[in-house]
């Protein structure tokens, strides 16, 4: 997924340059940011701030929305090194994407682990002890994900603050009138 993100960024940048549409890249930051913001609905749903929506479907949308949004923001950043603040924001976003992919891998591994354990218990015939063991592995999977969140969320906060700083500076100097 990370390789695909790098490829999509380079390909997008190349296509825009080939068709003399570099100006499109300047504005891709807006839909990219909106996609990332929209995908945060999953985070809000998971915390029960909202009641509607299937969390599993929302997680898929969160993964896709943040990936596509990040690709758009990376094309928007282009391969130009000018101001430091937007680059710090883009770098923090990149770390956030890597952290998200690690979380996705951990979740997949945890699910597989619990599934295998449960299958073993079923094959052997369930007993009270085995059920407790099953619960223990479930709890371990939850604990692993909770520990991962302790890293993923601070990275997101840093990214969000840097991105807000960049957006604010654009609003401050933009020729509105």
């Amino acid at each position: 997924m990370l390789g695909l993100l790098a490829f999509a960024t380079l390909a997008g940048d190349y296509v825009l340059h080939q068709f003399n549409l570099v100006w499109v890249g300047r504005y891709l930051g807006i839909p990219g940011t909106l996609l990332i913001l929209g995908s945060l609905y999953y985070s809000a749903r998971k915390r029960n701030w909202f009641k509607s929506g299937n969390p599993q479907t929302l997680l898929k949308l969160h993964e896709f929305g943040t990936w596509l949004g990040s690709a758009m923001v990376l094309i928007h950043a282009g391969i130009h090194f000018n101001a430091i603040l937007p680059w710090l924001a883009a770098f923090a976003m990149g770390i956030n994407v890597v952290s998200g992919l690690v979380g996705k891998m951990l979740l997949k591994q945890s699910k597989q682990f619990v599934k295998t354990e449960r299958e073993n218990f079923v094959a052997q015939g369930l007993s009270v002890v085995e059920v407790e063991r099953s619960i223990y592995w479930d709890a371990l999977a939850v604990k692993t994900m909770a520990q991962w969140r302790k890293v993923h969320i601070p990275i997101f906060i840093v990214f969000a603050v840097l991105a807000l700083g960049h957006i604010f500076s654009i609003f401050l100097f933009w020729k509105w009138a």
Partner: protein
Amino acid sequence: MSRTLKIIVLVSLLVIAILAFTYAHVMIAPGRLIKEHQSLNGDCFACHTSFRGIDSKNALLATKSLKLVA
């Protein structure tokens, strides 16, 4: 998030915010000014007006201060 991590994150962001204000031409500006305007580096508001863009009156005053126009 642990207390130490919170402090590290907050201090780092505060340092970046201070740098953005004190070295705006490096932290925020999309490129360097032309050679004749180099002395205006770091003084973005010599030409820009907050949330309005480049004010031609300000820009003219700033350029006059550089003695590039009469």
